[in-house]
C-alpha cells in the first residue's frame, strides 16, 4: 500500500527507516504458571494513539502495567525513547497513567489531585497550582477545582484523572479503559475530546480497551490481543478490511465466514469451493495453493440485496429474509439462502422513500469478488 507522500509524515509506521519511540521486544510476563503476556513485539511511534484491543484477560492491561513499571517483565526488553526501562521504577519513568478506576486521591481537592505530580517533581506551589488550573481549564473543570472527587459526576472524575495524568507533560500517556465507566452518549463525546487533547499536546497515547468501536474511533493503529499474544497490528482500516485471522475478523465488527478449499488459482480470479455457498469467485490473494483449506470472510455490508437476479454477477445466491432489524441509518438482515445457510447482510438507508426489502421476501444476494477476504487461520 503506497499512500501519498505527505501521509508518510503522520504515519511513521509505514516508513521502515523511522525509529520507534517505544519498543517492546520479546516480552513475556508470567504469574506463577499462568502466562499473561507471551512474546510480544511492538513498536510505537511518537505522537501515535495506539489502542491495545482484546477481551478481558487477554494480557492487554498487564502489558500496559509493564510499560508503567508496575509489573516487571519476566523476560524481554522495554525501551522508551531509547532508554531501557528494566531498572527504572514507576516514579522515575517518563510515563503517566490514567487508571480504569481513575484512582483519584479522595482526601484531596480536584486542584490538589492535579497538582500532585508537579509538586513531586519539585515545582513550586504557586506555579504547580497555576499549571494544574490550566490543565483543568483544558478539560473544562476549572469551576470544580476546589471540590473533592466524591462531589463530582463520573464524567467529571474521568476528566480530572486525565488532567492529572497529563499535567506533567509525559512523553507517553497510558490509559487503562479510559471511557469504560461512562455511559454511551458521554463515551462518544469523550472519544473525540481525547483525540482533540492528544493532537493538541502531541503526547503519545497507548489506550487499553475491550470496546472495538472505541478502538476504531480513537486509534491511529490497533493491536489486537488474544491469550497474551498480539494477533494483528494495523490501522483501523487494515484491521477491518484485511484481518489476518478468523479471530480478528470476528472480533472487529460482524463477519460471515465460509469454510472451503482453494479450487483454482488463476492470476485474475480464484475459485473457492465451499459447502455453504458452492463455488465462490474471489480476487486472487498471494500465498495460497490449490486444495488449501481457507475461510472466505465477508462483511455484511458487502452483500448487495436485490429483488431481481442481478445480471453479470459472478457470485449471486437466492434466499429469503428471515429477520430484519431496522435501526435507522442501517437495516440488518438475516437471510436464509436456498442452500440452507444463514447469512448476515446489512444495507444503509440512504433514501427516505425507499421501498426496502422486508420480512419473508425472496431476495438475491450478490457479492463482488474483491469484497471477500480469504483467511488461512
Amino acid at each position, binding site marked *: 500500500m503506497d499512500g501519498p507522500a505527505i501521509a508518510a509524515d503522520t504515519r511513521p509506521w509505514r516508513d521502515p527507516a523511522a525509529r520507534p519511540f517505544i519498543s517492546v521486544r520479546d516480552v513475556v510476563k508470567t504469574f506463577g504458571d499462568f502466562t499473561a503476556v507471551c512474546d510480544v513485539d511492538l513498536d510505537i511511534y511518537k505522537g501515535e494513539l495506539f489502542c491495545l484491543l482484546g477481551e478481558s484477560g487477554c494480557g492487554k492491561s498487564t502489558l500496559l502495567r509493564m510499560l*508503567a*513499571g*508496575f509489573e516487571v517483565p519476566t523476560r524481554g526488553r522495554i525501551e522508551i525513547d531509547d532508554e531501557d526501562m528494566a531498572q527504572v*521504577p*514507576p*516514579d*522515575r*519513568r517518563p*510515563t*503517566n*497513567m490514567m*487508571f480504569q*478506576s481513575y*484512582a*483519584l*486521591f*479522595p*482526601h484531596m481537592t480536584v486542584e490538589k489531585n492535579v497538582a*500532585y*505530580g508537579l509538586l*513531586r*517533581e519539585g515545582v513550586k506551589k504557586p506555579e504547580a497550582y497555576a499549571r494544574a488550573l490550566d490543565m483543568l481549564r483544558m478539560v473544562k473543570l476549572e469551576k470544580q477545582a476546589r471540590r*473533592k472527587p466524591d462531589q463530582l459526576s463520573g464524567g467529571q472524575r474521568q476528566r480530572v484523572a486525565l488532567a*492529572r*495524568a497529563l499535567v*506533567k507533560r509525559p512523553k507517553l500517556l497510558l490509559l487503562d479503559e479510559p471511557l469504560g465507566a461512562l455511559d454511551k452518549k458521554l463515551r462518544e463525546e469523550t472519544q473525540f475530546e481525547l483525540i482533540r487533547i492528544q493532537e493538541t499536546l502531541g503526547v503519545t497515547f497507548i489506550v487499553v480497551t475491550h470496546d472495538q468501536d472505541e478502538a476504531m474511533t480513537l486509534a491511529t493503529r490497533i493491536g489486537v490481543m488474544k491469550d497474551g499474544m498480539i494477533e494483528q497490528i494495523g490501522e483501523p482500516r487494515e484491521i477491518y478490511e484485511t484481518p489476518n485471522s478468523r479471530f480478528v475478523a470476528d472480533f472487529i465488527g460482524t463477519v460471515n465466514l465460509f469454510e472451503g478449499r482453494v479450487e483454482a488459482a488463476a492470476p485474475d480470479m480464484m475459485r473457492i469451493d465451499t459447502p455453504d455457498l458452492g463455488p465462490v469467485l474471489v480476487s486472487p490473494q498471494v500465498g495460497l495453493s490449490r486444495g488449501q483449506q481457507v475461510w472466505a470472510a465477508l462483511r455484511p455490508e458487502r452483500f448487495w440485496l436485490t429483488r431481481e437476479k442481478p445480471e453479470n454477477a459472478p457470485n449471486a445466491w437466492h434466499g429469503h429474509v428471515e429477520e430484519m432489524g431496522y435501526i435507522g441509518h442501517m437495516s440488518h438482515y438475516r437471510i436464509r439462502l436456498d442452500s440452507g445457510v444463514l447469512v448476515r447482510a446489512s444495507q444503509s438507508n440512504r433514501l427516505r422513500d425507499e421501498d426496502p426489502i422486508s420480512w419473508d421476501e425472496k431476495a438475491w444476494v450478490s457479492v463482488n469478488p474483491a469484497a471477500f477476504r480469504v483467511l488461512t487461520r
Partner: protein
Amino acid sequence: MNALTRSAPWRGTAWVFGKLGFSGRSLVIAIPMLWLGVFFLAPFFVLGRISLAEAIIARPPFTPLFDRAPDGSLEIFASLENYRFLLEDALYRNAYLSSIRVALVSTIFALLIGYPIAYYIARAPEPKRSILLLMVILPFWTSFLLRVYAWMGFLRSNGVINNMLLSMGVIDSPIQMMQTDFAVYIGIVYTYLPFMILPLYANLTKLDGALLEASSDLGASPMVTFFTITLPLSLPGIVAGSMLVFIPAIGEYVIPALLGGPDTLMIGRVLWDEFFSSRDWPVASAVAIVMLVLVVAPIMWLQSVQNRRGMD
C-alpha cells in the same frame, strides 16, 4: 411488610404498643436504652450523689442526701466540698496529669509499633493474613492478669531479661526494671496493642492499591506516597485505635499496681486507695466523676470532628 410483621401475634403486639404510644422503632431502641439506663446512667447518678456527700463512720459511709432536721422539716445535704478538695490537693492534680501522660506516651508507642504491624498484615496475601490476625488476637485467650504476671517474670531483677544479659556479659549487675514507669509502659503497650492494630488493620485493608500506584506513577517515592496518601487516608483508623488505647490506659489500675513502683502515680490507684484504704467514698466518687469527664471530653471532640467531616 414481611411475613413476621404481617403475622397475627405481631400485629396484636403492635396494636397494644401503638395504643400506649410506642412505635416499633422506639421499641428497638428501647432495649439498648434500657441497658444503658440501668447499668450506666443509674450507677452514674448514684456516684454523683455520693460525691456530693460527706464521709462519716457509718454504714453506708457517707451522709444521706435528705435528712429530718430536729424541727421536723426536710433538709437537703449536698456540697461541692469534695471537688474543691480535689482541686486544692496537689496529689490528685498530679495523679490526673501523670495518668494522662502515661496514657499518652503508651498510645504513641502503641501507634508506632502497631502501625507497621497493621500495615504488614493488611498487605499480606490471604492465608498468611488470617494467621497473622489470629496471632494478634490469640493473647486474649489467656487471662490478662496471667500475662501481666508473665511480664513480672521477664522484668524482675532475677528475671529472664536480666539473667540473659548477665550471662552474655552485657551487664554486671541486674537492671532495675520492675517497679518503674518503664515497666508500666511496657505493660500498657503490650496489653492494649491489639486494640491499636485491629482498627488500623480494618482501615488499611480498605486502602485502594491503585491510589498508591497512581501516586508512584506521578513521581512520588514510596516514602512520599506513605506520608501524602497512606497516612492521611488511615487517619480514621489511627484516631479509633488511639482512643481504644488511650481511654482504658488513663484509668488503668492493675498494670501500675503490679508493675509500677511506689512513685508511679496513676488515678486508678488513687481511686482504689480512697475507696478501700481511706474508705472515703465521697472523695473517691468525686475522683471517679472527674476522671469520667476527662475521658469523655476527647471522645466528644472526636465525634464532633467526625460529624463535621461527614457533612463536608
